Every structure is written in structure tokens, then in C-alpha cells.
């Protein structure tokens, strides 16, 4: 009796979940073998990671803080994918949002209750403006947004470097390359974790509801799955594309706003910490589901925090990055393999 492998269009959820779990375990085993070869004790390291991440308020707070920008950037990328737009410019929109929010904080006087919401709006608008040109180019000239959004990342990165070391440099002269500390900060509610976290969760739920429970969301889902079908049903594909891409940019801009106003408190070059690019991975892990972004961002935050733990144990940044990449790589393979089954030929 011969057997052969058959590909099925989509894996049942239980199999997909099991494949994910197996992938993470296998990635950790592989990483453990590599670490053992480098002369570390993988079990002790693993215990250390677990103990300091989940066994202390330090670790939990750090994860809680890390997850905020990851939720926003992951959601931004996932929202774009809903209509088939690959926004890999979340990094640039993050900077634009941080820049706009900082501008409001530094130059608009007023009480916190007014300025913080204003910063929120400015962050969203900043992010949306940053994706405006790629959006219009895609909608009207069919220019691939992959390239345009990516290229604008570099522009935004350099722009923020320039303002933070130039015109907006801390006038006190003490900071090397940052603006002054913002006069208003997003308040913290648990240790170092600020109110950006609940806001991020609410935004995720709102966006999830937008796609699940509105006519507009239904049309966007159809258009994202098959633009032909949207045309067939007479839906305004272009208008939806523009709206969704601007929404994606605005959400990425919020990531920048909360990072500068809640975590770093000053605008500086490198403030994005690659959160824009990590958002792509979060969206992939979430399979472009808005609600799925929450667990995916949490997993990513735990991985990143574990990376910090490993660094303090004498493991270099590059090794940590390799292990992080390994976990994501195995997960991607697991996702694909979950769609195969063995059948009797």
C-alpha cells in the first residue's frame, strides 16, 4: 500500500495550532542545541528566561510595555493585508506619528487632558500622511506599495534623526541627540506600563469589529480576498483601498505616538527600534487577523524580552536575533506543513 502527500487548501484550526506549538518547541530545541554547542547550558538559560519573564513584575511589565508598539504596528500591517496591500512602511509611519505627536507636545501649550488627545490625533494623521503618496500611487497608477512604503521608511528615519539632532535638539544642551523631554506623558497604570496598552487593545477590538460587523468591513474583506469579485459585485475597490491604506498608516503612526509619549518621552533617532518591521512578523503570525494580532504581538514581545534576558547572560545580540528568526522561520514552515496530509494512494 503506497502513501502520498496531499495538499489541502486550508488547515483545520486544531492542526494549525498544533503545528504552531510544535514549531516553537522545535525552534527552541534547535536553539538549545546551538547554545549548548556554544558552551551554554540551555536548560539553565531557559529557566532563567521563564523565571525573569513570568516570575517577576520586571519581566511582565517589560513584556507589557514591549507589546504596545507591536500591537499597533502588527495591526497596521494586518489591516493593509485585509485589502491585499502590503504596508511594509509601518516603520516610516511610526516615525511620522512620533514626529507629529512630538511637535504637538513641544509646541502646543495646554493642559494634559487636551494635549494628549491632540497628540493621539496628530500621531494618527502623521502616520496616514506618510502613507498617502504610496496609497495614491497604488490606487491611481498601480505602483507597487511594497517599494514605495519601504523607501519612505528611510526618509522618515533620517528626517527624525535630523530634527532630533538639529532644530528640535534639547535646548538644555545636555542631551546628545534627542528633543527635550515631552511636557506631557501617557500616564502609567502598572509599573512602567502606560495606558497605551489598554488603548491598543481597544483599537484592536474596534478594528476587528469594523471588519466583522460593518458593511464597509465586508466590502473590504471581499476586495482583499479577490479584487475581481469586488468589481463583479460593484464595490468601489479604489475608494476602499485608499481608506484601508490610510487607516493602516494611521495605526502605525499611533505606535510612534505612544512610544514617544509613553515609553521614551523624547523624540530621537532610532526610536522605532524596528517595531515597524517587527509588525510585519506580528501580522504574519496573526494571519492578518486583527484579533489575532493580540496573541501574536504578545508572543513577539515575549520573544524580544527573552532576547534581552539572553543578552545579559552573555549571549550576543546576533545570536539572540538568530534564535528569534529561527522561531519565526519554524512557525512559517509549520503553518505551511499543517496544510499537508498523508493519504493512501
Amino acid at each position, binding site marked *: 500500500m503506497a502513501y502520498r502527500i496531499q495538499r489541502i487548501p*486550508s488547515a483545520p484550526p486544531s492542526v494549525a495550532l498544533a503545528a504552531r506549538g510544535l514549531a516553537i518547541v522545535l525552534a527552541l530545541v534547535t536553539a538549545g542545541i546551538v547554545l549548548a554547542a556554544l558552551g551554554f547550558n540551555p536548560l539553565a538559560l531557559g529557566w532563567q528566561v521563564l523565571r525573569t519573564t513570568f516570575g517577576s513584575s520586571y519581566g511582565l511589565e517589560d513584556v507589557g510595555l514591549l507589546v504596545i508598539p507591536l500591537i499597533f504596528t502588527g495591526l497596521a500591517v494586518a489591516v493593509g493585508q485585509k485589502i491585499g496591500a502590503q504596508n511594509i512602511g509601518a516603520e516610516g509611519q511610526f516615525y511620522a506619528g512620533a514626529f507629529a505627536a512630538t511637535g504637538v507636545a513641544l509646541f502646543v501649550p495646554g493642559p494634559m487632558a487636551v494635549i494628549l488627545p491632540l497628540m493621539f490625533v496628530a500621531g494618527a494623521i502623521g502616520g496616514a500622511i506618510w502613507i498617502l503618496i504610496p496609497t495614491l500611487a497604488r490606487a491611481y497608477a498601480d505602483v507597487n506599495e511594497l517599494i514605495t512604503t519601504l523607501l519612505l521608511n528611510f526618509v522618515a528615519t533620517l528626517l527624525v534623526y535630523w530634527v532630533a539632532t538639529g532644530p528640535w535638539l534639547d535646548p538644555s544642551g545636555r542631551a546628545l541627540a534627542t528633543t527635550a523631554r515631552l511636557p506631557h506623558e501617557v500616564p502609567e497604570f502598572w509599573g512602567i506600563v502606560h495606558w497605551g496598552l489598554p488603548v491598543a487593545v481597544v483599537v484592536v477590538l474596534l478594528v476587528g469589529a469594523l471588519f466583522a460587523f460593518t458593511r464597509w468591513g465586508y466590502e473590504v474583506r471581499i476586495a482583499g480576498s479577490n479584487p*475581481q469579485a469586488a468589481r463583479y459585485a460593484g464595490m468601489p475597490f479604489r475608494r476602499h483601498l485608499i481608506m484601508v491604506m490610510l487607516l493602516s498608516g494611521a495605526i502605525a503612526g499611533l505606535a510612534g505616538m505612544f512610544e514617544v509619549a509613553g515609553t521614551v518621552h523624547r523624540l530621537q533617532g532610532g526610536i522605532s527600534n524596528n517595531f515597524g518591521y517587527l509588525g510585519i512578523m506580528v501580522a504574519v503570525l496573526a494571519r492578518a487577523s486583527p484579533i489575532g494580532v493580540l496573541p501574536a504581538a504578545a508572543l513577539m514581545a515575549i520573544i524580544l524580552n527573552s532576547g534581552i534576558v539572553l543578552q545579559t547572560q552573555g549571549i550576543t545580540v546576533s545570536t539572540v536575533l538568530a534564535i528569534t528568526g529561527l522561531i519565526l522561520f519554524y512557525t512559517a514552515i509549520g503553518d505551511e506543513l499543517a496544510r499537508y496530509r498523508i493519504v493512501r494512494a
Partner: protein
Amino acid sequence: MIAPEPPVPVPTRFVPPPGTAPIVQLRGIAKYFPGVIANEDVDLDVMPGEIHALLGENGAGKSTLMNILTGIYQPDAGEIVIDGYPQSFASPVEAIAAGIGMVHQHFKLVKAFTVAENIHLGWSDTPRAVSAAVLERRTAELAQALNLTVDPAARIGELSTGEQQRVEILRVLTRKARVLILDEPTAVLTPAEAHELFRALKDFVARGNAVIFISHKLDEVLEISDRVTVLRGGRKVATEQTAGCTETSLARLMVGREIVLSDMRGRSAGAAPIGAPVMTLEDIRADDGQGHVVLDGLSLVLRAGEILGIAGVAGNGQKELTQVITGMRQAASGRILVDGADFSRAGAAEFADFGVGHIPEDRLHSGLAPSLSITDNAVLREYDRPPLSGGFGFNGRAATALAKDIAEAASVTVPDFGMPVRNLSGGNQQRLVARREMRIASRVLVAAYPSRGLDVGAINMMMRYLVELRDKGVAVLFISEELEELLNLSDRIAVMFHGRVMGVVDTAEADIDTIGLMMGGKRLTDDAKGRGH
């Protein structure tokens, strides 16, 4: 340096010595796909020195048969005999090693590479040390030896389609192919280019090789081939000496001699009579967005309570016609009148609102969102009206309820309405789409190849759906490649060829030969209009 041999005059015709085995022999070939018989019990002999035409409508099994011969598919039954020895090809590489090469409709050339680079790509004879000059010299020599004119240094992207085809043929021939299979090669050529191709093919078989020429065009089959094998519904109908054939006899073989009449044209007592025009197309012209004219002055009238059949070989503008009359494509010129109102500039939403349903030809590509749930797909036409939608919201529960109704009406058993629609079989997708469209088709239903991919029982059900709508007074535009279906169902039949209507006949007076000729590009003249039949 050896002086090149003087060219040997080629004989005008290669006559194999008596007792020579066929170069290719297929015996009892069968191939089944889920729910579809692609080929069954097909025999085919191809002799050295002959051009053998393979004639049949789209979906008759020509391409599948050739894909079996070239190792792309494995036959489920039957055997392949080459030069008298049974062979089995696990891949096209093995087939080409046995001297069997195929030129597909869509060329497999690298556009950014030169002709010489494409010829040498993936070829074991390519020298290890290559330079542009070496490759181009080799290419020029090969082209000369095979009597095919190409510019070795030209980039593929700069060549015309005919020149690209020549490169593709050269590529196959350089692999020492003795049997050259061409899949509808003239579809992409100008008449002059086609002529040139025919000359090259005749040269090729004069050297003792063979050509299998896939086509559905009667005139060129008569012009080029020595023998012709006709396939219909996956089976071989006949193999004839071309010299003894006429366009009429070939057309009859191709579309079927005996039509099993299960006439559905009769109307029940309560049925609506054929009424006023619902939709009128006047002199519609459209291009495919790349400058090719696909609708070329087409005029049609759709009447309430009438099924208008569209016959013709696929690819003659049927797809674009469905797009134009559902608002998905704007005509470049001409008018569309709907109930007297000008809908020439209307979009898909306006047509749908008016009551135009559309069962598209490639349902998975234009009628469905494959990765979304069955529910999402089932409600595509009614998501924007109560109870699914009140203003801004979208009621998922109401959507599932509607999806259940549609699935029930379509007799599709759905275990999980949240499952992606692509997990359904093609037949079930088709039935869902049909039922969904019928719900909104209060005035017009456009049904493009609605029976494609369905088994006999399902086809019958689909036909009854159309009759049901007709009896309610809906105008039905029914596009099909199956003449039998068209004759059983339509009140009138229009035949399309190259974006034009060759003629419209009343089914009652229709004559299969005439329709076959019109499908092959003969315009309906007054004396052939079927009055005498």
C-alpha cells in the same frame, strides 16, 4: 575547416517505407479528474512525414491528451508507444529525450534574455564555457540547419509574437524533437505569420518528422493537415484523411452528429411569454485593455422571458460580452439600453440593482472570494440590504441565515459555513453562485458556461434553474460551448466569432451545420439562414 555541404533539395513529401511503425501511437488512453472524464479510450497514430491535426471544441480533451503524451500527466489507463516500443514519460524532460516536444499556447521564454540565451537555457548540449558570441553563433547555425530565421542577439521582449513562437519552435527542435506538438499555434499569429509557420512545418515533416497540430479552426485544419483526429467529450470521434473532408463534415464531427433532444423549450401554462426587449446592445466595441479589439461592433437584443443562447468557440469575445452587459467593463463605443434607459456608463452596482444576475465563467476568479467563508461569499449580492445591513452595520447572523437558505436551494451540503469557499468542490461552488445570482436576477441573468465542471445530474438541475427564470419573465443570456445544451434550452442562438455576432437563428429552425460553420468564422448569408430547412 570543412566547407558546408551544399543544401540538399528537400522532397516535397516524405513517404515512409511500407511497414514503418507509427512514430507515435496512443492506445486506449484514459485520464480522469475528480468528476470529469478528460480522456477515455483514445487511440491515435501519428506517422512519420505527416501533419496530424487534433480537432475539437474547448474542453474536448485535446490538451489533456497532449499533456499525457509529453509527460506532464500520467495516463490512468492505456499506453504510449514510440517507434513501436512502449514508453512511459514521468516528465516532459523524458518526453523530449524520446523526441517529443511541445510548443504551448503560452510561451515558456525568458523575456529579458536574448534568443540565443533562451535556446541554450536548461539544455545539456550547452557548452560549459559560454559567452554571448559563442551562444549566438551556435544559435545561428542551428537556426540555419533547421531552416528557421531568428536573430540570435535579439531580446525576447522585443520580438513579435510570431517571432517568439519561432524561437519556441527552434528551442524544441534543437532538442532533437521528431514529433512537434503545437497547441493552437495560429491563435496568436497574423495571417502572414501563420502562413510562414505552415511552410516551416511542411519543411519539418518533409524530413521524416511529424507534427501534431491542435486546433479548432476548420479552415486551417483543412489547409495544413494530412490527417485529422476529432475529439469530443474526451473521446475520439474519428480519424479521417483530410483530403476527404469538408468544413461541414468536420464541423459536424466536432460539435456532434446526434443531438439527444431533451427539449426544454416548451413552456408550461403559467409561464411568461416572450416579451419586450429588456436589454439592447447596439454596436458595442471594446478592447481588452492591451489594445486588442475583443468586441467588434456587436449588437444583441435580450427579451423578457426568453433564453438567448450564445454559441461559439471560447475566446471569441464571450467573456468580454458578459462583462460589458453586467457593468464590469465599459464599452469603448456603442450603447447599452436597459428598459430604454442608457446604461452605457453604468457600473456593476447599477446593473445589479436593476436586477442583472451574473454567473461568471471563471467563478473562483471573479464570482467568489476564495479565502473567505461560504457565508461571506453566499451573501455577496445581498449584503447591502436588510436584514443583513441596516445602514452601516453588517449582521453576521443574518448573513449565515441567508447563506443557509442559498445552500439549501442549491442542494449543497455545507458542514461549516465559516469554512473558506475554496474548500468546496467546483460543482458546489457553481451551484451556490448560480442560486445566489438567481435571487437578484429579477430582469436579466447572464450565465456563462454554467454547466462547466458539473456532472450530468447537476447540469440538468442547472438547466432547470434557467428555465425557471425564463418562465418568470427574466431575460436569460446563456453562453455555452455545448451545442446540445444550446439547442435544448435557447429560444434563439447567436453565434460569436472574433468579437462579432455571425448570425442569430431561431432554435426551431436551426441547422447544426450552419452553426458549426458560423463558429468557424463563416458569416450567415441569406440563403443559409435556415429558411430552407
